[in-house]
């Protein structure tokens, strides 16, 4: 009923391509995050879905309807803006009521629905206030209320939490998840914050330079990143990369990079790389590095204790590696230690195009 489909959608502003031949299908009732660094085209994508920008190419459909030519008002979508975009001259009630007035909902029905939305968002006491008399969190809830009151087919949220302080953000994240569960509407959530995307969404679409990198559930995005960009973008601290070559085949396969030589024969590759170019990037997550008497020699460059865990930066044969270990690990800067990597968690990417080489069946 409110499935969203982007088919080969592009958007150019003058000579700049904001969204490049993007195809994506969001299921009805799904909570999907669009994640990427700033300038990757995620807000443009959302604005095209809302009808505020017209795609240069491709089609966008909501349900069974192609909406390319439809005005925002005809699309039955509601949007929450990063700046909240509350109407400053209207009261809270006036703001929430506005979409209903534009849809010519009868007066007493309007009053009832504004009350309902206000109750859900705990805004009853604030209905007669002007937006400037509210705190950031309250303004945010009014913006949500204005979207909620219409009961739209699709909710679009453009970095709605980015202007809140950390504590409130955590709280609102939980509120949004609860809200989604209750109303069961399709929600498209744009963010540059991987934590928000990972915790809230059923699936995440990672964007870079207007191109879709991967569209998968959070777990998969983390464990099976489609390419080295996704692998490096998701996770804090980010994945360590070593650039080198593959040598040998099958179980005798080895990764070489300068003095480093690691056996990677146990990683099942989707396809054996042909001989002439076997340049690869080896990816190691910080939590998959541990200290092991049998391991490889390395020197500790930096120790960053955060309490529940410690971030360690090693010099491993001329390469910098970041590792995440227990908070009580007893290591000091300058120490010489031995490191081991969890072999089954290593990830191999083609150096040429960044795609992941490990077979998808690898957990």
């Amino acid at each position, binding site marked *: 009923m409110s499935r969203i489909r982007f088919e080969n959608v592009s958007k150019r502003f003058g000579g700049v391509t904001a969204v490049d031949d993007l195809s994506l299908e969001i299921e009805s009732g799904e909570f999907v995050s669009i994640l990427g660094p700033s300038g990757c085209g995620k807000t443009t994508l959302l*604005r095209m879905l809302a009808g505020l920008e017209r795609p240069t190419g491709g089609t966008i459909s909501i349900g069974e309807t192609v909406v390319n030519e439809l*005005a925002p008002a005809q699309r039955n979508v*509601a*949007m929450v803006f990063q700046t909240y*975009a509350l*109407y400053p001259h209207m009261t809270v009630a006036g703001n929430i009521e506005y979409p209903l007035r534009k849809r010519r909902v009868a007066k007493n029905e309007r009053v009832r629905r504004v009350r309902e939305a206000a109750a859900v968002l705990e805004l009853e006491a604030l209905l007669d206030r002007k937006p400037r008399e509210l705190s950031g969190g309250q303004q945010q809830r009014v913006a949500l209320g204005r979207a909620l009151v219409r009961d739209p087919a699709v909710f679009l949220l453009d970095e709605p939490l980015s202007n809140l302080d950390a504590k409130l953000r955590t709280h609102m994240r939980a509120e949004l998840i609860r809200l989604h569960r209750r109303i069961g509407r399709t929600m498209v959530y744009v963010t540059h914050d991987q934590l928000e995307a990972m915790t809230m969404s059923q699936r995440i679409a990672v964007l870079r330079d207007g191109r879709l990198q991967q569209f998968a559930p959070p777990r998969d995005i983390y464990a099976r990143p489609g390419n080295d960009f996704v692998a490096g973008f998701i996770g804090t601290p980010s994945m360590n990369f070593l650039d080198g070559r593959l040598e040998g085949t099958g179980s005798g396969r080895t990764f070489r990079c300068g003095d480093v030589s690691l056996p990677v024969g146990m990683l099942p590759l989707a396809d054996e790389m042909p001989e002439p170019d076997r340049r690869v990037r080896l990816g190691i997550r910080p939590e998959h590095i541990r200290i092991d008497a049998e391991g490889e020699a390395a020197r500790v460059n930096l120790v960053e204790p955060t309490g529940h865990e410690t971030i360690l930066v090693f010099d491993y044969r001329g390469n910098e590696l970041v590792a995440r270990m227990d908070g009580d690990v007893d290591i000091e800067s300058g120490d010489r230690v031995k490191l081991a990597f969890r072999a089954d968690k290593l990830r191999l990417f083609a150096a040429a195009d960044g795609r992941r080489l490990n077979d998808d069946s690898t957990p």
Partner: protein
Amino acid sequence: MSAPASIVRRILFNVFAWAVVLVIAFPLLWMVLTSVKPSTELFVIPPRLLPGEITFEHYRRLLTETPFLIYLRNSAWLAAGTTLVVIAIATLGAHSLVRFSYPGRERLARLVLFTYLLPSVVLIIPLYLLMTGLGLANTLTSLIIAYTTFALPYALWLLRSFMKAIPDDLESAALVDGANRMQAFVDVILPQALPGIISTAMFTAILAWNEYFYALVLVNNDAARPLTTGVISMLVTSFNIEWSLLMAASVMMSLPLIVVFAFLQRYLTRGFSAGAIKG
């Protein structure tokens, strides 16, 4: 700095400031006082500041024996008409110059400012010929059109800077909430731009109220003359200047502006600052 030096400094500053105020205010004071003096007291030597006897005779004569009220009505129509036309076009135009993207938008905006820089002397003869050609010579309409030519570019430019300060997201939100472009403009943009619109309207009204040159050239019958040219042609002749009536007329011409200004002052000063910072 020692305390006495700072006191001296403050006294000097105050003396200077009051001297400037006096220079500006004295003619106005003299105007008011002269308008209520009997004509016989005007030229006594030595001059007397305060009238020996206060009379409103000149005001009575002005209102009953001269076409002053017709001029006043004309001026009011001119100010209201020009303001209405200019604001209607300028708000929509400024909105377009800020929000819509089309080729040459910035060039168009600069071109608008350029027309404002043309001296009125250059425009007056073509305008006069145009009005005659249209059969509008000697009408209030011709003056409203003429005033629009110089008030509109200014108003457009001023309103553009006001509208630029309104966040794009507000209009986007209204569109997504179900408004069409015109409704979004009326419901959301206009209320936000209201202070700017009010101050622009006041500037326009003042320009139209005080305009002299176009009125002098384009209109030469009493039925369409505004106060500026009407009062001069009625009271100032080659042989005589009716000083008492002239001063009474001047007082009455200034009053409407002072009253309007007093009511809308806070919008006007906001307008000045917006034009100054964001323009």
